[in-house]
């Protein structure tokens, strides 16, 4: 606080009445400018299934140079379902469609510094559109299949998240692991409505029944979140193959103990496999840059 007042007063000394456009990045600004992206991901078939219906898609862009431009990261996890290999086709198609739409609507325009303008869609609207496009593509091209879909768009330190299904986003902060998304599963609703305890839910027969998924209906209701991920904090996206088998505390310990986000993802997946690996396992981990 004191430093900001000092900085503030310093700026007042000798400042001009009219605004001037010139400025240089201050110490604080450069802190938020990503240098190297700290990022890792793994997708694994697990111990029981014979093929991997999960898809992880990572799209990043970093500008290096003096001019301040925030890093762009787009992380997608999709967990497909449907027989005859339709699951992986659906999850891949959903992820690719969403990324195509998001980069076209948000990344490419931002490269040329388009004005912040209400005539452009809001970033959450871009994400929702992308999820709808994925829904349409899967419904049309892979009928009879479905997939969960979670997209996290990271710009600077802000994360924009949209999801459908039970693949999750977590923030790992100083105070622990915080689940950002709520599963669109019947069991989650039964728990929320007090019909079921967490303990009873563990072996509930409808544990995997979703009430919302991509490729299931002509309209898709998408949940969105905007979350600041402070420097040093983590954003984790994962499929139920991870969170179903590895407890929150273990997730925290494994991430904190790892030397890099990539190593953390490998350890998380190994832990899920040790616990039985009964489903495909996918994790994407991003660390907000310290500067």
């Amino acid at each position, binding site marked *: 606080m004191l430093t900001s007042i000092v900085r503030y007063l310093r700026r007042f000394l000798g400042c001009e009445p009219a605004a001037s456009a010139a400025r240089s990045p201050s110490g604080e600004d450069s802190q938020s400018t990503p240098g190297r992206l700290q990022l890792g991901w793994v997708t694994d078939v697990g111990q029981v299934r014979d093929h991997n219906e999960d898809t992880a898609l990572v799209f990043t862009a970093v500008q290096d140079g003096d001019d301040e431009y925030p890093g762009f990261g787009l992380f997608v996890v999709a967990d497909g*379902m449907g027989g005859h290999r339709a699951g992986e086709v659906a999850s891949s198609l959903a992820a690719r469609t969403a990324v195509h739409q998001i980069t076209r609507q948000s990344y490419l325009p931002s490269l040329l510094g388009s004005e*912040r303008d*209400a005539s452009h869609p809001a970033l959450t609207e871009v994400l929702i559109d992308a999820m709808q496009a994925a829904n349409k593509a899967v419904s049309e091209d892979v009928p009879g299949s479905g997939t969960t879909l979670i997209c996290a768009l990271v710009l600077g330190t802000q994360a924009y998240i949209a999801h459908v299904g039970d693949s999750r986003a977590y923030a790992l902060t100083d105070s622990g692991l915080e689940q950002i998304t709520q599963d669109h599963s019947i069991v989650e609703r039964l728990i929320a409505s007090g019909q079921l305890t967490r303990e009873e839910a563990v072996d509930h027969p409808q544990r995997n029944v979703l009430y919302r998924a991509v490729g299931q209906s002509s309209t898709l209701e998408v949940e969105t979140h905007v979350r600041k991920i402070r420097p040093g904090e983590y954003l984790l996206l994962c499929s139920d193959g991870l969170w179903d088998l590895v407890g929150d505390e273990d997730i925290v310990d494994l991430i904190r103990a790892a030397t890099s986000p990539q190593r953390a993802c490998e350890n998380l997946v190994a832990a899920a496999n040790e616990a039985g690996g009964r489903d495909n396992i996918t994790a994407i981990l991003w660390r907000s840059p310290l500067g």
Partner: protein
Amino acid sequence: MSDDQETACGKKAMTPSDPLETHSIKDSLSSSTETDEEKGAAWEDRWDHQRQAAAERSPGVDGNLPKGFLLQNRYRVLTVLAFGGMSAVYKAQDLRFSKAKRICALKEMTSTASDPAVRSMILRNFERETNILATLSHPGIVQVYDCFTEGNRSYLVLEYVRGKDLEAILDETRGFPSEASVISWAIQICDVLSYLHSRERGPIVFRDVKPSNIMLDGFGRIRLIDFGIAKMFQGSKKGTMIGTEGYSPPEQYQGISDPRVDIYALGATIHHLLSKRDPRLEPPFSFHQRPIHQTNPRVSPELVEVVNKALAYDACDRYGSAEEMQRALRGLHGARSVSDPDGFSLPADGNKPIEPRWRFAMEDEIRSSPTVWNGTVYVGAYDHNLYALDAATGEFLWKYATDGGIASSPCVYEGTVFVGSADRVLYAVDASDGRIRWTCPTEGRIWSSPQAAFHHVFFGSDDRHLYAVNVDSGRVAWRFEADGKVRSSPHLGEEAIYVGCEAGIVYAVDTGGDLRWRFRARRAITSSPAVTDAMVYVGAQDKCVYGLDARSGWLAWRYRTDGPIISSPVVSNCIVFIGSADNHLYALDAESGRLVWRYGTDGQVSSSPVVLGSSICFGSVDGGVYSLDAETGDLRWRFQTDGPVTSSPAAADGVIYIGSADRHLYALPA
């Protein structure tokens, strides 16, 4: 409209599908996929999609009969009423009655499946549906006249109901259907359910009560249609999981089918009709989290109570039978017709009269918002004066006369009151005695309310500038040139100052007066931004509330209200509260911009809300000062003044201070 789907991997999803889809088919199919599970059987939904897609591509084939087509040498197709899933419904003329134009509905079911087993299953289900329907006779159930099969298509000849289903009616209705109509429909549905549930040959659980399955004819009479999944209720035997996403009770997902399933679904249907919130777009079983009065406060609490009871999670807490629910509805109906003709009533608490601690009369309207500091209330009035009143008693302390009306709200900083006036001047007045310290002239009227921090006071002027002025000397440290008049009040954040202008732009200006970013809305931004460490929230006269990334100005989300926004948002507990000229106060989720609740008043809400503990307080142009529960939007109390309330409340020590165009400043117990 949904079914459970099971896949090779064991993950399931509920599928909303077409209203006319025949669920009974899925019923049988899902059991076959279950046995086939490990082999990776495809979802039975697959050919629905294929067929639907095919139908969209080439209408007129694949079960889509052309106009004039003759069936059984008796039924001439007139038009297609609905098409989807594996069935279509046509309007047809029965030529057997040559002298009269007898119209009927033809429900057609087609199998495009090449698998003969699947095809025979479809036929079996068709026969089952027909047989159930044929044994039923009730004015609230659509009548079956005939049935036949031609090739791979089977037809059901039904009574043609001139009218629309409740879903279509709801979509077409502006505002809400009247409470009396909804009660009347519900009573009739109870009658049908009661008939089905108490049938001698064993109760029939309809299992799919929802607006699109209820037809309303021109005489206000309802008919239940589509018995696709109605099935014989056989003791405690568990059925397969089928049901309409959104309208089904929890136990239906466990495969339990009991008459109380229909009670719940009827409750869900009434909830949808009254609240206009489609449960298919909401998480299942979330009715209690979004009470009807959030969107439609005029529904009587008694009716809400009936709906809530029908929607109890636990089947034992619901009405035990359709008759019992019907009695409750009839009771309401009678009670309502004698008193309270418009159905409007306040919650019990809302009737408690609020007595002001004191009120103080000025010489003109108060549009400015008061500020409380050190036991003193400061407020400007259109009578040109800045007043200082004792906060506890309302006693007059002093006033300072400017040369213009004051619509700007004062701010107090280090013993000085700052206030702008329509005379284009910012005044710095001693907070204790009202003596002038300095003035800072600008080139435009000042409507923006000054904010002070870091030894400087910041405010906007109609001369299109944002000013930073030294609090001691009144010297202008810098001016930031905006694209339009600056009537919005600046928000001083840790890293930047955020302000809007009448040209519709929000600026983030750093503490040296340099632009960091700008965001352009479609209309003027008179509202003042609210800021958290991550986001900037602001309302615009283009009717939208914007959530912007505080660092970059990128638009994170927007929420459209139905009226221009002048009210400034306030953020508390991850909720953004803001008023709109559409007469509502909105509570939006700060992370997603999604509506949490909204509260309707009878006038525009241009007052900016203030959070006090767990309540939220604001004024309306209807003359009311409202206090709502911040979490639920329930009315805590309302206080009526004699003029529009555009002033925003100030709160201190359990007292709310707010001005009205009736020229009074009120002190109300919070």
